């Protein structure tokens, strides 16, 4: 009880402190006009540098490598610091200020049109992806090493603590997702499902952490979820049985649904593509929305500055309480979305492993 009281007082003081700091900023913000939509969009979208914080007018950010191939000048590799946060042009490349390519690297072609070069820069999301992939590999391999050291001695291989947690997650995916959803061939697909689960879960969690190694909206980016969904799509359709294809193109329905107009086959064929599409959109939208809500709630503090100190403090406290609540929800969502993606992938794989029906009703 004492602790709780102390924490509440601490939070209130923090707020008053923050208030004091945000006050001098007030006129500038007013002048700039805090555009919440743009702020949120900037945060959830990709960027060429990893912005950490801004002191007054100094941007503190980590520059990341830009790798582009222009049609007329070939390959270019340079640091994103050359753009000076979008204010400068370098070797004819600059960050597009508006339009379809807003925030992306563009150049002018011969006719003066703005075109995008082939751009495989290590952006904020790409950097976060590489970092989290490295972390994930180290994490799982160190667990695997622990087990490897105890190979042949099963009586000693009962881990505690962190490895035990990882084992619990792994075995819950294998035993509760892969086995019931896929059936007898589940061992073949378990590594893929486990990789997908840990990849999504790990990146989701990193996304919730607001400072450097985390904070990037990786799993809330459509390119990332797209690759994951395409992987599931490929596995489902490559390893699909004959019966699976027969059920798509010649399903067990009344003849008039198949001839002369192939209504059912058309519906089934659309279904083949909508399943992974739903996977892609679900993960993307959930994580994106989570980030947007957290940012929106945080912005509430700055939006209410003009309403006076009392109102601002009240809204600030409310905002923090709500943000903490939403952050907890996001922790849950991080797990649930990873689990759902894995489970639906397993279900789709299981559906493509159908055996011919022996009994016809």
């Amino acid at each position: 009880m004492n602790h709780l009281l102390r924490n509440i007082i601490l939070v209130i003081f923090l707020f008053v402190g923050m208030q004091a700091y945000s006050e001098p900023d007030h006129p500038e913000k007013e002048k700039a006009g805090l555009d919440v939509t743009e702020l949120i969009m900037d945060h959830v979208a990709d960027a060429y540098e990893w912005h950490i914080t801004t002191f007054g007018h100094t941007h503190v950010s980590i520059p990341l490598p830009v790798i582009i191939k222009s049609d007329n000048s070939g390959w270019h590799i340079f640091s994103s610091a050359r753009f000076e946060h979008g204010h400068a042009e370098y070797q004819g490349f600059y960050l597009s200020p508006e339009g379809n390519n807003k925030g992306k690297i563009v150049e002018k072609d011969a006719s003066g049109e703005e075109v995008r070069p082939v751009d495989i820069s290590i952006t904020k999301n790409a950097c976060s992806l590489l970092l989290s992939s490295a972390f994930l590999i180290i994490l799982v391999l160190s667990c695997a090493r622990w087990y490897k050291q105890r190979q042949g001695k099963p009586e000693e291989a009962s881990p505690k603590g962190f490895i035990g947690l990882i084992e619990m997650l792994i075995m819950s995916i294998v035993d509760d997702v892969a086995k019931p959803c896929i059936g007898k061939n589940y061992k073949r697909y378990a590594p893929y499902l486990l990789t997908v689960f840990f990849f999504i879960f790990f990146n989701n969690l990193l996304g919730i952490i607001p400072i450097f190694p985390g904070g990037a909206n990786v799993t809330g980016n459509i390119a990332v979820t797209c690759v994951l969904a395409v992987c599931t799509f490929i596995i489902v359709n490559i390893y699909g049985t004959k019966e699976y294809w027969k059920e798509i193109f010649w399903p067990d329905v009344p003849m008039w649904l198949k001839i002369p107009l192939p209504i059912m086959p058309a519906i089934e064929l659309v279904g083949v593509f909508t399943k992974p599409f739903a996977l892609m959109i679900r993960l993307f939208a959930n994580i994106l929305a989570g980030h947007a809500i957290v940012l929106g709630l945080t912005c509430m503090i700055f939006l209410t500055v003009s309403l006076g100190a009392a109102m601002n403090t009240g809204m600030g406290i409310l905002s923090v309480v709500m943000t903490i609540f939403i952050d907890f929800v996001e922790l849950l969502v991080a797990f649930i979305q990873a689990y759902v993606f894995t489970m639906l992938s397993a279900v789709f794989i299981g559906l493509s492993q159908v055996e011919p029906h022996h009994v016809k009703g």
Partner: protein
Amino acid sequence: MLLQPDLGLLFWMLVSFGIVFFILAKFGFPIIVKMVDDRKAFIDKSLDAAKAANERLAGIQEESERILKQSRDEEIRILKEAQDTRSKIIGEAKEQAAVEAGKLIAEAKAAIQKEKEMAIRDIRNQVADLSISVAEKVLRKNLDNPSAQRELVQKLIEEAQKN
């Protein structure tokens, strides 16, 4: 803008996910899953072994109880048998002794009877002989007075005693 997958990120995602998948699916998860399965199998085996051992232990206990009971029964039986034998031997001995004693007594009685008869016969013979010799002597000597007769008889009796 958000719904448009960026080429560069697609590329890096493909690369990083591909690498992660390759490494984890080859060196990560299968090892962990296999070890957990091994452990499960080991635990199952141990449980079975423990169950079997328990059963055997129960069997052994039962067996030992059975043997104990059997040995106790045997003991009782042997003791009883020994007692029986003892009393039988004693009985037989008594019987035999009685028979023997009876026989000895009978024999002794018979011998005594015989001795007695022989003695009686002997006495009779001697009395007869004595009477005959007395009579002979009386006849042989002419006895006229009773004192001489008494003297003679006395003399004869002494003679007979000497004999």
